[in-house]
């Protein structure tokens, strides 16, 4: 039997007052795959992300995350920080949210709060300076160093995160999310504001994460070179509903997708005539 997909979204509906940002949406994202969520502005992509990561609570629908050990977690029932901690879903933000006054390394250490907190017995053992905590902290630094190396930020480890250039901040946010050891990494427009070279590096980084960490990646992206270049599957939303799903090549040729992005073809009379 095939194992269930990592993330299963089933009949998800999220309404804000009378406005349905996402309505009856179902799709799945697999482990070891990059799933891109695309769609015009206002299609409900970020709302979907906020539902998956618990920042919004959907009115209808099921969000199941299947861990490799067989446990199935229902994300729509969990608070945001519980999703990050127990379900191991990490995310980045459309407008970068680092801890700007803290150093780059500190940003990555804070991401390992859960592990360090347990090792320090709610900071009591740490207060006494016991060896157990010091070992855990060394391990945390090693993991942070690993991701600093991967994102090319090692030289900036002790610099204030807020003083980094924009592209570096984007990469740092990904490194910070990876330091939580997630099973599913949700990236909200990771290539926004990057130049072509940086965007190429990003593709490389994301493919590396997929192939080496074997985790699922879910990304919202407008930059088609990223979407077509690295994603294994593409999910297209428009007005909160799914209009296409499939490999990048399939989606590229799908007439519904072209319509959503470019508008109706310029022959409404013929369509009306056909219906009449």
């Amino acid at each position, binding site marked *: 039997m095939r194992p269930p997909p990592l993330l299963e979204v089933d009949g998800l509906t999220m309404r804000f007052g009378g406005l349905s940002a996402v309505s009856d949406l179902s799709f799945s994202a697999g482990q070891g795959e990059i799933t891109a969520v695309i769609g015009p502005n206002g299609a409900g992509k970020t709302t979907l992300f906020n539902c998956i990561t618990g920042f919004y609570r959907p009115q209808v629908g099921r969000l199941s995350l299947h861990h490799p050990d067989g446990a199935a977690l229902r994300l729509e029932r969990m608070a945001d920080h*519980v999703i990050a901690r127990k379900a191991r879903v990490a995310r980045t933000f459309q407008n970068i949210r680092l801890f700007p006054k803290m150093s780059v390394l500190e940003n990555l250490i*804070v991401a390992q*709060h859960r592990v*360090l907190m347990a090792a320090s017995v709610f900071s009591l053992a740490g207060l006494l300076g016991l060896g157990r905590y010091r070992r855990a902290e060394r391990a945390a630094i090693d993991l942070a160093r690993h991701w600093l190396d991967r994102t090319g930020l090692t030289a900036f480890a002790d610099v204030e995160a807020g003083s980094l250039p924009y592209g570096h901040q984007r990469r740092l946010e990904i490194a910070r999310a990876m330091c939580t050891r997630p099973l599913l990494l949700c990236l909200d427009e990771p290539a926004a504001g990057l130049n072509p070279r940086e965007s190429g590096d990003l593709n490389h980084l994301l493919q590396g994460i997929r192939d080496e960490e074997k985790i699922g990646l879910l990304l919202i992206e407008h930059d088609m070179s990223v979407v077509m270049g690295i994603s294994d599957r593409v999910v297209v939303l428009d007005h909160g509903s799914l209009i296409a799903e499939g490999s990048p090549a399939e989606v590229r040729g799908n007439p519904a997708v072209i319509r959503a992005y470019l508008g109706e073809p310029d022959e409404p009379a013929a369509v009306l005539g056909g219906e009449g």
Partner: protein
Amino acid sequence: MAAALSPPLIRSAALAAVVAALLALPLMGVRLVDSSSGLSLAGRPDLVAWAAGGVFCGRLLIDLFRRWIADFSIRLPLPPPPPDWTRFAVGWGLALFALVLPFLPFADRNLVDKATMVLIYIMLGWGLNIVVGLAGLLDLGFVAFYAVGAYSYALLSLTFGLSFWVCLPLAGLFAAVFGIALGFPVLRLRGDYLAIVTLGFGEIIRIVLQNWQDLTGGPIGISGIERPSLFGLSFKAVPPEGQTSFAEFFGLDYSADHRVIFLYFLILILALATNLFTLRIRRLPVGRAWEALREDEIACRSLGINPTTIKLSAFALGAMFAGFAGSFFATRQGFISPESFTFIESAMILAIVVLGGMGSQIGIVLAALLLVGLPEWFRDLQMYRMLAFGAAMVLIMLWKPSGLLSSRAPTIRLGGRA
């Protein structure tokens, strides 16, 4: 200076004078005169001229002053942040100085007393620094926890006859419980809203203390609070039955100074303990989570940090140190009343933290010396105190908007040493 009086300055002053004249004409320029033929209007052109002239000169002076300030701040380059070792050296130097202060030749009882007062505020500042500086939760009612600590000790000691050393941890505990009690309702608030609620909380505590006559004695307060002893050695001239006095035990002549010096060392130890605790916890997961929470709460939640527990721990620990300081205050004064726990105290402690540079431990020491120490030494100039306060605040806002010492050292470096 001649070059400074350029045409644009004159023009802006003249414009202001014209506006002033127009305004002054109806406001000051006419007067009702009671003449034989009934009421009539009389002009007062001299007043209008004075108003216009005053505004002209005032405007000119303000412009010149602005220009001068601008020049001045350009000429004052911001000093680079001091390297870590100076911070370290200054810290230890100050601690050492504080340790030998009572034995220095110029130290009399008066000086030690004032130093004790300053140390209370330093300790309160360090306690509040956990809440405001590290966790970024603006607390305007911090004095409430100070009051809880003071009344805890006073009531426990008078009602159950418990000694200071038993009451000290209890007072801290009670204050921490109040910290959590305040924390729960304000978990979702930030910034201005949080400040208002905490302000209200501080006032509620004070008003309860003032009105709950049966328990707290109301506005009369509580007097005759037990003084602390050193391992059972009393500092009284005539020790109570079954106790030895400090002077007897060490074969010294009795002197009231002994107690003053003892109290000084007591608060010094309490304050240093607060400081060491803060320095240490900054490098632990909780401390880092506090700072992360201050920077971005949403990012914290996305990393699996539960903001509720982190905020409550900050409130509880900050309140605990205020509770310790409060019970020390009660035992030092021997008398407490709600008068000692007014809003102005909260504002003072907050001013110390903000002036010192949020999150900076040594900055708080400097700010406490400035705000509490200087006014104590220059009591003769008391009437200018608020004036100096205002001027100091304006100067700080102009030149050091983020406090005296605002540079932040990372809690961990890639080499492993922080």
